[in-house]
């Protein structure tokens, strides 16, 4: 399990190549890559603010929970902060498990939590000004799926 919060770019391909290698019980690896999208067509950059100290703590807690809940062989979270241009990679998640359902569910769980529970805030900066990205109701709603332990995967 590794958690990295950094301003520097990361190499998605190299991280994918390194991740989950050599695990004896690994049958499934899922990765997620988040990319800065310019929906308005007028964004110059996205600025990501975070809460140093709490960020690492919150993410490590979430990753530890995912590792236990889905018996993961490994998990990785990388999240950048600072100024990013459209098309740049913001963050990535990777999970390794015996079976595909566990790897998928754990990656989605991590994403849902990172969206609404890790202390990051996004601001879109363009020629017309700067706007903080508003939290979406559906991102908050996505967490409901994980609150009931009965919804836990049977690991098939």
């Amino acid at each position: 399990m590794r958690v990295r919060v950094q301003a520097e770019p990361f190499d998605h391909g190299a991280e994918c190549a390194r991740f989950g290698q050599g695990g004896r019980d690994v049958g499934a690896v899922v990765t997620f890559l988040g990319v800065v999208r310019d929906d308005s067509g007028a964004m110059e950059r996205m600025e990501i603010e975070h809460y140093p100290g709490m960020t690492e703590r919150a993410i490590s807690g979430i990753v530890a929970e995912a590792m236990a809940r889905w018996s993961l062989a490994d998990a990785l979270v990388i999240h950048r902060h600072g100024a990013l241009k459209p098309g740049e990679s913001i963050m990535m998640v990777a999970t390794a498990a015996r079976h595909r359902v566990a790897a998928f569910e754990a990656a989605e769980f991590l994403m849902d939590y990172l969206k609404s529970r890790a202390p990051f805030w996004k601001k879109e900066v363009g020629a017309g000004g700067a706007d903080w990205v508003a939290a979406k109701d559906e991102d908050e709603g996505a967490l409901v799926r994980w609150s009931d332990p009965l919804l836990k995967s049977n690991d098939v």
Partner: protein
Amino acid sequence: MIDILYFAWVRERVGLPRERVETSAATVADLVEELKAREERYEAAFADLRALRVALDQELSEFTAPLAGVREVAFFPPMTGG
């Protein structure tokens, strides 16, 4: 003495990223009332508590939570990571 941190637009409205205050507030809500009474920029930052989140010593918490023993309080809007 307690450290107060502000993030995102809360930080922008208050006009600073952190400050150290002397307070005898019993709960987070009491602390918010103290701050709002100080200056208009706090009034603007804390106008709608439903739009805010609070962390006590780097753990997400509630506005009703007691402040006893807490060293660091952080105020911010709902997170937008990922």
